[in-house]
C-alpha cells in the first residue's frame, strides 16, 4: 500500500468519527433529529473497515522490514506545541498491539451504535447521544493510536470527559448526576498519577515519544541503571493512572455507579473499550515496567485483589447491570494479573502481555454482548433491571435469552467459548510464573489460586444472574405492560453477531495461536519460542466453570428456597458482599469527609481572609484618590494626577532616587 493510502487509512480511523461528531453537533438538533444515527453509523463503519485494513494489511507489512525508529505503521500529523526544547507532535502510530485493540474497539463500537439506534429510539437527547458516542470513539482510537505519552494523556482525558457526559446523559436523574460526579472525581485521582508519571518520564528521558522512551532498548537500560528509583516511581505513577481508568481496587468504586448511563454506553465505554485503556497503558509500557519488578508484582496483586473482591460483591447483587459491572471490574483484575508476570522473568513478559491483551479483546466482545442483552431485557421490562422483579423470561424474549446465554457461557469460561481460552492463557502464565520465579514464586502461586477461585465465583454469579432472569416461573413487572416484546431487528442483529463472536473468537484465534503470533511483533516484546497448550489446566478450568454453573443451577433452579437460607445462615458475609464490603462508606469516611472539611475550611478562609483582602485592595484606589479629591472635584483631574504621580515615580526610579 502506498504511503499516501496508509496515511489516509490511519487518519480515517479517528477522522470519520470526529467528522460525525461535528456534523451531529451542528445539525443534530435542527436537521437530523431522529436520523442522527446515520452519521455515526457511517463513520464507525468507515473506522471499522480502516481498522481491519490496518490489522490485516498495514501492520503486517511492517513486521518484515521494521523501521528502526518507528516500528509500526505511522501517519505523520503535525507539530502541536513547539516551544523552545519542547516539541509535542500529534502523530498516529499503529503496531501489532494497537491494531488488535483498534479492531475490537471499532467493531464493538459499530455494533453498539446499531443497537443504540433501537434502544435510544424516541429519547429526547437522541442527537446528543450519537454526537457524544462519535466523539468518544474518536477520542478512544486517538488514545490507542498515540505515538507519545502527552497525546495519550490528552485523549485519556477526553475519553474521561465523554464518559462523564454519557454517564450523566439523563442528568435530570439525581442518581445519574451523582454517578457522573463520582466517576469524574475518582478518575481525577488516577489522572493525577498519570500526569505526574508523564512529567517524570519527560524529565528523565527528555522526550515523551514512545520510540525514544519505550522502544530504544539501549537507552532505556542506560537510564534505568542511572536512575533505578526513578523508574520505579514512574511505573507506580503510571500504574495509579491505569488503576483509575481501569477501575482497579480501591479506585473501582466509580464503575458500578456508572451504570446509571444508558445501557449501550455501559456496554461500549464501561465494559469493552474505555475501561481497558488502563490495561493498554500498562501493556504498552511493559518495557518500562521490566525495570521495576516491584511494580509488576504490585500489578498482579492489585489485579488479584480486584478480581476477588469484585467477584465476591457480584455474588449478591440483585441489579442485573450491577452484576455485570462488578464482573467487568473482576475481569479487568484478571488482565492486570497477567500483565504483572514480567517480574518472574523477562521471557514471561510477552506471554503475560499477550494473555492480558487477548483477554481484553475477547472480554470486549462478550461483555458488550452481555450488557446489550441486559439492555434488551431492560427495554422489554420497561426499564426495570432488578432481577427480583422478573423471572422465567426465556420464552418471553427468546433472542435475548439465547444471546445472553452465549455471553454468560463465554464469561463463565465454558470450554471452547471465548472467555475459556483467554482466561486459560492467563491462568497458564500465572501458573508458570509461580514455578519460574524464585523471588516472587510464592506470590504468583497465591495469585494463581486466587484467579482460579475467582473463576469459580465468576461461573457461579454469571449463571446466578442468568437463572434468576431467564428461568423459574414466568413473571414480569407491571412496567413492562401486558405483552413484553423482544428486541427489534436493530437491537437483535448486533446481539446475534456479538453472540457468534463470543462463541467463536476465542477458539478461532487461540487454537492456531494466531493472536500470540501476531502480538509478538509489537516493539518492545521478545517473540516467544514455542506455544504450547496446557491441557491439564484447561481441563481443570473447564471443570471449575461447569461446577460453578452447576451450583448456580442447584441453588436457583432446583432449590429456589436455598439462597434465602444461605443468606440467613451467613448473614454477616452476605451483608459484607451485598454492601460491597462497605467500601463506599469507608471512602466517605476517609476521603470525602476530610475533603469536605477542607473545602469548608477553604470557604471560611475565603470569606474571612481573602474577601477581607479583596475588600481592602478594592478600597485602595479610593483611598489613594481620597487626598487629591479634597483639593479637586473632577474625576478626570483626579486620574490625571494619579498618572502624573505614576510618571514622576517612573522618572524618580530611573534617575536613581530609590537607589541607595
Amino acid at each position, binding site marked *: 500500500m502506498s504511503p499516501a493510502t496508509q496515511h489516509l487509512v490511519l487518519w480515517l480511523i479517528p477522522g470519520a468519527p470526529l467528522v460525525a461528531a461535528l456534523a451531529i453537533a451542528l445539525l443534530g438538533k435542527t436537521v437530523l433529529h431522529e436520523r442522527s444515527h446515520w452519521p455515526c453509523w457511517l463513520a464507525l463503519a468507515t473506522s471499522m473497515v480502516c481498522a481491519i485494513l490496518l490489522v490485516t494489511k498495514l501492520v503486517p507489512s511492517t513486521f518484515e522490514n521494521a523501521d528502526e525508529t518507528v516500528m509500526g505503521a505511522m501517519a505523520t500529523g503535525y507539530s*502541536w506545541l513547539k516551544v523552545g526544547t519542547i516539541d509535542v507532535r500529534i502523530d498516529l502510530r499503529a503496531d501489532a498491539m494497537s491494531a488488535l485493540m483498534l479492531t475490537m474497539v471499532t467493531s464493538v463500537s459499530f455494533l453498539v451504535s446499531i443497537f443504540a439506534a433501537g434502544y435510544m429510539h424516541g429519547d429526547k437527547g437522541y442527537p446528543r447521544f450519537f454526537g457524544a458516542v462519535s466523539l468518544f470513539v474518536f477520542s478512544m482510537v486517538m488514545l490507542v493510536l498515540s505515538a507519545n505519552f502527552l497525546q495519550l494523556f490528552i485523549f485519556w482525558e477526553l475519553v474521561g470527559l465523554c464518559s462523564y457526559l454519557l454517564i450523566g446523559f439523563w442528568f435530570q436523574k439525581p442518581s445519574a448526576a451523582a454517578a457522573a460526579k463520582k466517576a469524574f472525581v475518582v478518575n481525577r485521582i488516577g489522572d493525577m498519577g498519570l500526569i505526574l508519571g508523564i512529567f517524570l518520564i519527560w524529565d528523565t528521558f527528555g522526550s515523551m515519544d514512545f520510540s525514544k522512551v519505550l522502544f530504544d532498548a539501549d537507552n532505556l537500560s542506560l537510564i534505568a541503571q542511572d536512575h533505578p528509583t526513578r523508574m520505579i516511581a514512574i511505573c507506580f505513577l503510571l500504574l495509579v493512572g491505569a488503576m483509575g481508568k481501569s477501575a482497579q481496587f480501591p479506585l473501582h468504586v466509580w464503575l458500578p455507579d456508572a451504570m446509571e448511563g444508558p445501557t449501550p454506553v455501559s456496554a461500549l465505554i464501561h465494559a469493552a473499550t474505555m475501561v481497558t485503556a488502563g490495561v493498554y497503558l500498562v501493556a504498552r509500557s511493559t518495557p518500562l515496567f521490566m525495570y521495576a519488578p516491584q511494580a509488576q508484582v504490585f500489578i498482579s496483586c492489585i489485579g488479584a485483589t480486584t478480581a476477588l473482591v469484585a467477584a465476591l460483591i457480584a455474588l449478591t447483587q440483585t441489579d442485573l447491570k450491577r452484576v455485570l459491572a462488578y464482573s467487568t471490574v473482576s475481569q479487568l483484575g484478571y488482565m492486570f494479573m497477567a500483565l504483572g508476570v514480567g517480574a518472574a522473568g523477562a521471557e514471561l513478559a510477552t506471554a503475560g502481555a499477550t494473555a492480558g491483551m487477548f483477554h481484553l479483546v475477547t472480554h470486549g466482545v462478550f461483555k458488550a454482548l452481555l450488557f446489550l442483552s441486559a439492555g434488551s431485557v431492560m427495554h422489554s421490562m420497561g426499564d426495570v433491571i432488578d432481577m427480583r422483579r422478573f423471572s422465567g423470561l426465556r420464552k418471553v424474549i427468546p433472542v435475548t435469552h439465547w444471546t445472553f446465554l452465549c455471553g454468560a457461557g463465554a464469561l463463565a469460561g465454558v470450554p471452547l467459548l471465548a472467555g475459556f481460552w483467554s482466561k486459560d492463557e492467563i491462568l497458564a502464565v500465572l501458573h508458570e510464573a509461580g514455578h519460574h520465579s524464585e523471588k516472587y514464586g510464592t506470590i504468583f502461586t497465591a495469585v494463581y489460586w486466587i484467579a482460579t477461585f475467582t473463576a469459580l465465583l465468576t461461573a457461579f454469579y454469571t449463571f446466578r444472574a442468568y437463572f434468576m432472569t431467564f428461568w423459574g416461573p414466568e413473571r414480569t413487572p407491571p412496567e413492562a405492560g401486558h405483552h413484553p416484546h423482544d428486541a427489534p431487528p436493530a437491537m437483535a442483529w448486533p446481539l446475534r453477531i456479538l453472540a457468534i463472536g463470543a462463541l467463536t473468537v476465542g477458539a478461532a484465534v487461540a487454537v492456531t495461536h494466531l493472536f500470540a503470533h501476531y502480538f509478538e511483533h509489537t516493539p518492545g516484546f521478545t517473540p516467544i519460542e514455542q506455544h504450547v497448550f496446557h491441557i491439564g489446566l484447561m481441563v481443570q478450568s473447564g471443570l471449575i466453570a461447569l461446577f460453578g454453573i452447576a451450583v448456580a443451577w442447584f441453588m436457583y433452579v432446583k432449590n429456589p428456597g436455598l439462597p434465602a437460607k444461605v443468606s440467613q445462615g451467613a448473614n454477616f458475609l452476605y451483608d459484607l458482599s451485598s454492601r460491597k464490603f462497605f467500601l463506599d462508606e469507608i471512602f466517605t469516611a476517609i476521603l470525602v469527609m476530610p475533603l469536605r472539611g477542607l473545602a469548608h475550611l477553604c470557604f471560611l478562609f475565603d470569606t474571612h481572609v481573602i474577601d477581607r483582602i479583596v475588600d481592602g485592595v478594592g478600597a485602595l484606589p479610593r483611598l489613594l484618590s481620597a487626598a487629591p479629591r479634597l483639593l479637586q472635584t473632577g*474625576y*478626570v483631574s*483626579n*486620574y490625571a494626577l494619579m498618572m*502624573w504621580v505614576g510618571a514622576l515615580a*517612573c522618572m524618580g*526610579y530611573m534617575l536613581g532616587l530609590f537607589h541607595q
Partner: protein
Amino acid sequence: MATAIEQLTNGVHFLAPELILVVTVCVMFLTGPFFVTEAGVGAPGLRKRWGALALVAIGCAGFVWWTSDAARPLDTGPFRADALTWYVRGLTLALGAIISIILVDQIDDGHSAESQACLLAILVGVNLTALANDLVVLFLALELVSVPTYVLLYLPRRGEANQEAAIKYMLLSIFSSAIVLYGMSMLYGAAGTTNLAGIAEKFADGMPEDSTTLIRLSVAMLIAGLSFRLGAVPFHFYAPDVFQGIPSAAAAMLSYVPKVVGFVALLRLLPLVGGLGVAEAVDGPSARILLAALAIATMTIGNLLAFRQDNLYRLMAYSSVAHAGYMMIGLVVEGGNDDVSGVGALLFYLATYGLITIGVFALFAGISSEKSPVRVVSDLAGMSRIHPAVALALAVCLFSLTGLPPTVGMLGKLNLFFASWGEGTTLGRSLAIVLAANAAISAWYYLRIIGVMFFDSAPAGEPAKLTLAPAVAGALCSIASILLFIAPQFLWEAAVKFVP
C-alpha cells in the same frame, strides 16, 4: 542622500495596504454627509452598506498584505517594514474586520459613515506605528490612533455616560501623549536625530556619558506615557469608567488597539536605549526592573479589582488591565538560550488576547438590544437556555481569557510562563510565579460569569433577540481560539520571527 519626499515616493508600494484604507476613509468622510438629511438621519440600512464598504476595504488591504513579502526590511527613511510590521498588519486587519462587523449595528444610519471611517483610520494608525522608523512618524501614527478614537467614542451619543466617557478618555489620552512627546524630544536631544536607525547607530557603542540623565528621563517618560495605552497601573484609572459608558464595538476596539500600539512602540523604542532583556547591567536603576514592577502591579491590581465587579464592561476593563500586565512580562524577560523568547511570547499573546477579548465584546453585542441591554453580570442569567450557542461561545472565550485548555489562551500563558521561567533568573522565576497565581485568581471571576449563564434561571419576560452579525463574529472568534489551540504553530512562527 535621498530627500524625505523621494523616500516617501519610493515607499508607496509598501504602504499599499494603508493607502487603500486611507482612500476609503476619505471617500467615507467626503461622501458620507450627502447620504443623510440635514438633521443627520440616514436611510434605514445605510449603516449596513457603509459596514460592507469598510469590510471590502479591509479585505483588499488584507489581500495586499497577504501577497506582500514578509521579511524585506527597508533600511532608512521614515518607514521601515520588517517581520513585526507584517505580523501587526495581519492582526490589525483581521481583528479590525471583526470590530467593523460589531460596529455596524451599534451606530445609527446617520453616523455610520464617520464611525466606520474613524475605525479604518485607527487601523491605519496601528499599521503606521509598526512601520515607523522615525520618532516623528511614530508620534503621528500614535495620534492617528488616538484622534479618531475620540470621535469614535463620541459618535454614538448615547446619553451622558457615553459623552462623559469620551471626554474623559480624550483628556487623559492627550495628557499621556504629552508625556510621550516629552520623552521623544529628550531622546532626540540626546541622539541628535529623530531617525530610529540613526539613534540606534548613535548609541551602538554605548550611551553618551554627558546625556545619561536625559536618556534615563526619556525612558521613564516613554514607559509612563505608553503605559496609558497599555492600561498599566497606575495609568489605568480611565479604563473602567470609559468602558462602562461606551458601546461594545468601541470597548472591543479600546481593549485591544491601544495595547497593540503601546507594545509596538515600546518594542521599537526600548531596544534603542537598552531597555529590553538582560543585556543591560544589573546595577543601577534599569528599565527592566521598572517594567517588571509595573507588570506585577498591573496584573495583580487588575485581577483583584475585577473580582468584585458586577458591571460586565468594568469587569472586562479590569481584565484588559490584568492582561496588559501578563504581556508586559514579555518585555522584561529575554527567555533562556533555546527556550521561548519573551518578545515572541508577548506577540503571540497579543494576537490571541485580541481575538478573545474582541470575541467577548462581539458576543455581548450579539445578545444585547436597546430594550434589554447586557451590561451587568446578572443580565446573562440563564443565557444557556435562551441562546445556547452564544452562551457556549462566550464560555469558550472566558475559558480562553482564564487560560484553560482547550483554548489558545492556555498556550499564550504557557509561552509567557516558559519564557520567564526558562530565563533562569530570580526575576524571571518570580514573574512566572506571579503570573501563575494571577491566572488562578482570574479564574474566579471569569468562571463566575459562566456559572451565571449556565446555572442561574433566566429572568421572566421576552428574551432579547439575537443580533446575528456580531454573534456570528463572536462565535467565529471562539472557534478560532479552539482551532488555534489545536494548531498554534503558524501563529507562533510568525510571532517569533521578529527579534528586536
